[in-house]
Every structure is written in structure tokens, then in C-alpha cells.
């Protein structure tokens, strides 16, 4: 990687890839994902601690959605309704019991948060607190950050990094470990086990790494 914009673009690609992999699987989408991970693996990802998880995940591609019963496992793990899925992929499932209040309030608050960041929609049909939506929001922020670096707008890059830090801390870094634990407990296929491990590893890393970049920007 040559510069910070490049790193932001790689992170954007990773968020988008992982968000896509956590949507309902289809043969067409997995073809796209196979190409995407091929591109990502060509980047200089071994400089990051999460690369071993990503490479392990990469070995599942090209994947046979029907043959490997990924569609069945997806429904079992994530898509049998809030009460039926073994490991619901929505933040409210993990956070509302602890924080109190209702799911509707929680999700509405997330929508307000997205609007405050200038995000009306991320183009997904999933709920605002769905894992794929949240990963896509981070992809969007990384895109903004990369643009700021490209335009040599360090101050703007710093402001976007602040948004990334806040979003990661308030949301993904808080509940992805809980999701990972639930998925593991549900004895998933190797693909979904490695997928949630990679999401967990990447999010935990990004929370620390983004903070480092922010702290390092010269005033």
C-alpha cells in the first residue's frame, strides 16, 4: 500500500466484502465475493493482524452455495426471524436487553445517528442495526476518508476518522464479539464460522488502528 488513501480504500473494500458475505447467500453474489476477496488478498493485508483470519476465509472461495448448504446454514443462523434464528445478526438483539428500552427505540436512534452522519440509506434492504448495514456504513465512511486523503484534506480526514471511531465503539466493536460467540455456539458450517471470526478480528483491529491513525495526524 502506498498511502493513507490506499489503506482507507482497502478497509472500505473489506467492510463491503464482509457486509456482503453476511447477506442471504446466492450463487451470483458469491461469484462477486470470490472476485472481491481475490482483489483484497492482492493488497498488502499481511501488515495487519487480521490477515490470517481473512486468508482462512478466502480459502472457502469459490463457494458452492447450494452444495455446501450455505443457504440452509444462513437461515438457521441468521434468518429465522428474531426469535427463531440461532444467532440473530442485529445489534438490538444483543444490546436492548442490557441497555433497556425497546427495539423500535433502539433502531430509530440508529436511524437518527445515520442521518446525523449524512447517511439517508446505504442501499440495503436490511434493518439499520443489521450487521451488513453497519458494515456498509463503515465502508461509506472509509470511502469519505479516502476521498479526503486524496484531496489532501487532512482536517476532513481527521473528522471522518472521528466518526469511524465513534461508530465502531458505539456499535460494531461492542456487539460483534457477542454475535461471534452466538454463532460459534450454534455449530455453524466452517464458512460461517470463519466469516464471523474474520468480522470479529477485523472490527477489533480497526477500532484500535483507526484510533492510531487519528492520534498520529499532526495538528
Amino acid at each position, binding site marked *: 500500500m502506498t498511502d493513507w488513501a490506499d489503506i482507507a480504500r482497502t478497509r472500505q473494500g473489506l467492510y463491503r466484502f464482509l457486509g456482503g458475505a453476511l447477506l442471504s447467500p446466492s450463487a451470483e453474489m458469491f461469484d462477486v465475493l470470490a472476485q472481491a476477496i481475490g482483489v483484497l488478498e492482492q493488497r498488502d493485508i499481511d501488515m495487519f493482524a487480521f490477515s490470517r483470519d481473512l486468508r482462512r476465509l478466502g480459502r472457502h472461495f469459490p463457494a458452492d452455495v447450494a452444495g455446501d448448504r450455505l443457504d440452509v446454514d444462513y437461515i438457521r443462523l441468521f434468518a429465522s426471524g428474531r426469535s427463531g434464528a440461532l444467532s440473530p445478526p442485529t445489534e438490538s438483539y444483543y444490546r436492548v436487553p442490557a441497555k433497556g428500552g425497546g427495539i423500535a427505540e433502539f433502531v430509530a436512534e440508529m436511524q437518527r445517528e445515520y442521518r446525523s452522519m449524512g447517511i439517508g440509506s446505504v442501499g440495503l434492504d436490511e434493518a439499520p442495526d443489521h450487521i451488513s448495514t453497519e458494515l456498509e456504513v463503515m465502508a461509506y465512511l472509509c470511502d469519505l476518508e479516502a476521498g479526503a486523503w486524496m484531496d489532501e484534506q487532512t482536517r476532513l480526514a481527521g473528522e471522518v476518522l472521528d466518526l469511524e471511531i465513534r461508530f465502531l465503539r458505539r456499535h460494531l466493536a461492542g456487539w460483534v464479539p457477542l454475535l461471534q460467540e452466538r454463532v460459534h455456539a450454534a455449530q455453524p458450517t466452517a464458512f460461517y464460522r470463519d466469516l464471523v471470526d474474520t468480522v470479529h478480528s477485523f472490527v*477489533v483491529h480497526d477500532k*484500535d488502528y483507526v484510533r492510531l*491513525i487519528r492520534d498520529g495526524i499532526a495538528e
Partner: protein
Amino acid sequence: MNVAVFACADEPAIRHEGDDVVGIRGLCREPMLLVDAVGEATRAVLLLHERAHDLADVQKALRTAELDPLGVQILEVSAGVDEVELDVAVAGLQHRAEGFAGSRPEHAKPVLRGEVTRRGLFRPPNPVYLVAPMIDQKACAAADGCRACVDVCPQDAYKWHQGRIHFNKDVCEPCGRCVSACPTEAISNPAASPTMLAAQIDAIVEAGEAAIGIRFVCSRSTQLATATGWFDVEVPCTGMVPGGWLVSTLLIGAGSVSVLPCSIGGCPLGLDQHSREAVDFARAALASAGLEPESAPIDSANAEPKEPVAARSLQHPFTRAGDIQTMLALDSFSEEAFSVVHPGSSVGVVTIDPETCTLCTQCAQTCPTHAITAAYEGNRVSLTFDASSCTNCNQCTIACPEIRRGAISVTGRADAELLRSGRRTVHEGVVAVCEICGNAIAPTSMMARIGELLGEDFDDTMPYLSHRCMDCRGLT
């Protein structure tokens, strides 16, 4: 477990090829050369030239080679090192690497060396990863009120909030104090686990032909030379090493043991005092066992190591169970029952003052290792104590509402007799019983103390409160 050893084959040569070490020319400058060499190995030891490599590049190459960098042992070798001693050190590191049980993403703490440039015109620095501690929330006793990690952390990286410990990795400068101080062993550092340390020391002792000295060194230290026969065991910071570990090291078979802090100017984390206390405790413990410190020197890596005192089999050194085993092993050297009183002891003894203790049982509820327990039987309540479970963490004294009156105290004391005596009752009293339903209300000593605090104005109310439980108050 397949542990491979790779050495940089550049001049000056670190090792001769032909033994179990794979020499790679240019390894320090080009760590990616490892990738093709690793083969089936799942763990590795790297012998590199002093200050000739970039750690970020080495870690990156290890990831490409599908090895976990946090478990790979790197030994910086200076020119002219004694080959026999190097063999022993490598044997130790091989066993240490073998004991690595893997790391979690949370353990990796990235650090950027260099500034993030405004224009980003040149290559951003690769992150270097340090090993941060991680809490196993299931084993953590914070819900009971334990906050031992909060008390010992020199950076205030831990906060206790609503029965849960919150860890701030950003401010943590990994020193390992929390790891060795956690009473329930809920905090881990996978790069310096008890298993790895024990395996390394054990292997060094086994491989060494003469008397062996073990020197615990801080990972930040510039490692000073020692006399012949001394071997370094790296820990995140020597401030994490309790005195019991020093004694355990001698019992594993080392003849001498020493501690090397990170710099002569003092530990930047301010943990020098803990190292001194550990050494002082170890000396006191040896003296109490009738072993003169001269025969098993501590903190003197300039002299030749002594012959081992006498090796004892320790099942799990550097753990809670190992600490107890070590103290009991010392008893076997002692003509009288072994006992040492010292603030640096990782074994404690709780004393309850029956005059001021109200039997509220807060101490038992907070005690993270259940060394103190409370038991209700009929109309009696008792506090029991088992010295072999006490870690001298003092969480009970922090929880005690009557601490100002001296209701409870903890003494750092390892006493073989107490350790063997098991659980014993340390205080008991009568529980007031509801005159209506017969359920327990509270210990009478506690009710008396409440009455004392409320004063004369409540003289009429107290008898009522003492005779009716919460459910039956208000009933006629």
C-alpha cells in the same frame, strides 16, 4: 507441535548450519524469506542479529507464513556469543514457543512508529503489534465487586462499572501487572503464559550442563550481559513478577534467580517497587525455610550461578496453585513449620475482629477466590476462611463497611500450617429471626450496629426492626 528454528545466516554467523537450525541468508533484512522456509512448522523461534531487523516487517512475514507472530520467539544474538549457551537458550525458547496456545484478536495492540503525514506521500508505517491483556469475562469476579486489576494498573486502563471491568486498550502499556494480580486468573497474556514460562525455564534447566541462573528481564530492557550460566526469560515488565515466582524458579531447578528491570533510570511505569518487593519476599521466604539466600542467590546476575538448592516437582508454577505448592515445598526444607510474613506474599491470611465485625458478610460476597465464605445454619451465621485460597488481594478489606473500625485485615503471610489446615471458622454469631414467619432477618451484631448508628431517636424502632423481617413488617 512443530517448532522450527530459523537463524539469519549473514555475517557474523549466528549458528553453523547442519544442526536443527535453518540458516537463511539475509533474514534480518528480508524477513519474507521465511515464507518459503516455514513448511509444516506451526511455531517458530527466530535468531536475528541485534538491532538489524524491523519488527513490523518480521511480524508481517510471519503472518504471510501463517504463523501467529505473538507466539513466535525472537532472540537477538550479539556477535561472539557462546555456542553452547546459545543452544541452551534456544532449547528454552523452543519449549516456550511450544507452550503458546494461540492469541485472540483482542490481544493484539497495534502501534504505529512514525507520524501520519499530512500528504501521505510516502509509505505509511506498518503497525507493530504488542501483546495486550484480555479479560475472560466468565472467569472475572467483578460482578462480586472485585477490582484487583483496577487497583494495580499503573495506567488506569481498567475501570469497574456496574459489576463489570472495562478495559481501555488505548492507554494500556502492557506490563502484565494485572495478569499476575488477578485473583481468579481471568486476565491472560498469551505471549507470557504460565505454561510458556514454566516450559522455558524447565527446558533451560534440563539443557544446561552446569548450574543455571535465570534472569527475568523486562521486554523493554536493553539486555545487559550476565556472568556465564545465566539465561534470560522475557516478561512484559519485571514489575509483574511476584516473589513467589522467583522461589518457584529455584524449585524448578535453577541455582540462582535474578530480576532485570527495563532501565537503570527506573521503570517508566513506576513498577520498580514491585520488583524490589518481590526480591525481598523471595529472600525472606528462603530465609524462613532455613535456606540462606547465599546458597540460592537472588538478584545477583553478576556472579556465577549456584548449584540448585534441590529441585522439587511443581505441577503448575507461576499459577495460583503453583504459588501454594511452592510455599508448601519450602516447608520441606524447614526444620520448623514454614511461615513468612511479608507484604509481597501472594498468599494472605485474613483476621476478623469479633468486636467490630457485624457479620454483614460483604467480605465473603466480594472475595474473588471464595477464601472467605459465609454460611447460615439455623439461627447462626459464620464466616469461614481457607488460607490456601487467599491471594492477599485485599478486596475484602475494600468491601468491608467497618474497615475503619478494623473489622477485617489481611496480612501477607505464607504459613504451611495454615495452608494445610483447610477451612476454619473465623467468626460466628446469632441471626435475628422474624417473630411471625420465622425467617432470618439479619445477624444480631449487625442490627446492634445499625441501632448504634441511628442513635437514640430510633430506640423505639429498632426492637421492631429486629423482630420482623422485611415481608412481615406492617402486619399485625
